[in-house]
């Protein structure tokens, strides 16, 4: 079984709002204002891919990232998670892609990676938060897609996937090949890579592909379908009234009075 997991590098989502600034020239977060990290749902997907591989004889995991040189870090991390092969695809023209274009290019790249049985991606990256790449890839590859998958296991040629619904969960039988978009769960908490694997990851090769390595790319579909014209940072801080009291029941009393006064009860 060949599992491909798509990874994305994002601005650290936990940067406090007061340090977050947008560079008006590029409409992107100011360089140096925060670290770049692997998107957290992508990391859940990577963990799930490795776990599945380890249960199946002869299975392999390829980690795939569309990104510039800086995003090699996420592929090194994938190697430290013991991914078998890592691939980075990039062209300098791809600076401002949107989820649709990324989904299209990743699908065309996956077609070049040989036989693929399962494609995993994070459900939504924490930077632009589109949630489009998985479904677009599946359409481009003409294979099924299940979104918001929290856990899954292989049963022969079928994967039993558990996905989130509005009121609970649904269990689906999905024929391979298929695309799953992954959300975090108890089952896919990312591992702490072993020191030995981190060391080994440093010297492993990263396969690099460019625009010329993918035959028949439709240049129009490699353009963003939407253009970001302007970014603004809203002033959201509200004045928080801190309630104090000498003991818990006093605090609880003044909170109750406050809520009654605000007529929200």
């Amino acid at each position, binding site marked *: 079984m060949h599992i491909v997991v798509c990874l994305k590098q994002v601005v650290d989502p936990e940067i406090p709002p007061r340090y977050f600034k947008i560079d008006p020239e590029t409409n992107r977060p100011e360089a140096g204002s925060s670290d770049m990290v692997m998107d957290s749902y992508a990391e859940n997907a990577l963990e799930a891919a490795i776990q599945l591989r380890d249960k199946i004889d002869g299975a392999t995991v390829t980690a795939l990232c569309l990104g510039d040189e800086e995003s090699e870090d996420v592929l090194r991390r994938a190697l430290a998670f013991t991914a078998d092969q890592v691939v980075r695809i990039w062209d300098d023209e791809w600076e401002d892609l949107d989820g649709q274009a990324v989904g299209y290019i990743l699908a065309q790249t996956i077609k070049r990676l040989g036989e693929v049985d399962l494609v995993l991606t994070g459900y939504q990256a924490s930077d*632009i938060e589109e949630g489009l790449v998985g479904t677009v890839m599946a359409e481009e590859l003409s294979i099924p897609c299940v979104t918001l998958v929290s856990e899954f296991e292989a049963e022969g040629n079928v994967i039993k996937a558990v996905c989130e619904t509005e*009121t609970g969960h649904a269990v689906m039988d999905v024929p391979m090949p298929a695309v799953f978009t992954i959300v975090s769960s108890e089952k896919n908490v990312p591992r702490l890579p072993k020191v030995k694997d981190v060391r080994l990851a440093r010297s492993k090769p990263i396969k690099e592909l460019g625009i010329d390595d993918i035959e028949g790319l439709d240049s129009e579909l490699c353009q963003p*379908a939407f253009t970001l014209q302007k970014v603004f940072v809203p002033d959201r801080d509200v004045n928080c009234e801190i309630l104090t009291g000498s003991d818990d029941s006093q*605090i609880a009393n003044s909170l109750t009075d406050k809520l009654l006064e605000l007529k*929200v009860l």
Partner: protein
Amino acid sequence: MVKVLIYADQLEGKLGSNAREALSFGTLLAESTSVKIGAVLLGTGAGDGAKEAIACGADQAFTIENPILDEFQTDLYSKAICAAFQQSEADILILPFDRKGKDLTGRIATRLSAAAITEVVDFKAEADGIKWIRPIYGDKAYGEYTANRKKIVVGIRPKSSEKKEADENRTGSIIPVNCELSKVTVAAKLVEKIESSLSGIRLEDARVIVSGGRGLGCSEAFSELQELANVLNGAVGATRAACDAGWVPSNFQVGQTGAVVAPDLYIAVGISGASQHLSGIANAKTVVAINNDAEAPIFKRANIGVVADYKTVIPALTKILKQKIG
């Protein structure tokens, strides 16, 4: 001819709450760009739903009243909505970016060779075209986008539009759509549905929500929150961290990935205030934060703060509320 088509989800002839919001969003768009809007309704009851959609602002309603569509199935719904969109000759398709929208938006856009944008909360109709506004970077910023294609699919974030009152005197035409669905291959087969909920009130509908985060430290603490929620006739929510820890099922999750909520009162207990979570409560009216860390980012969002240990404050609060309002 309609320019904008809205997917309006209906059950037994009644529109869902997200459908009402989408119709309100569409109506505003129609008013500011002087175009007509249509709605598409699927499954048994589509005809009755169509009447409500017209009362809520649609000029035309496209229906596929086929019982095969009574249960949501992504391949069937994608095909049906594409067929209605093509028949309507609209340029813009609007759908709520809820659980179904997350499945449908990217698929439908790809099939229609349309541009897709998701999590849209607002728009500006300007001389050079429509600017679509959506949060980015965990709601720390907002972006204004313009489309580079004629046909576009817009997924709007639930709870970001006010629902407009229905006007029973509005008139419009109801147009059945011809769509052959019996030959559609349904690839992923539903085996089982598991419902899980502690209380009867859906998070999205609750006027009061008591939510717990990593600071609670254990699953038992959630029964304390449930007790408080019961007094307030509210629902219990949780952060991603609390769900990932296995303390509560994932459908308790409030945040960008879980439920997007807009209650009158949101009580955040032991919640630090990660941006992923805050984007799910952006439209909550009054936020109360109870946390023993005075530096937690939640206090930047909360209207009322209590810096204390929840273990003693919550039981005290439950007791006093019982006395005063119970």
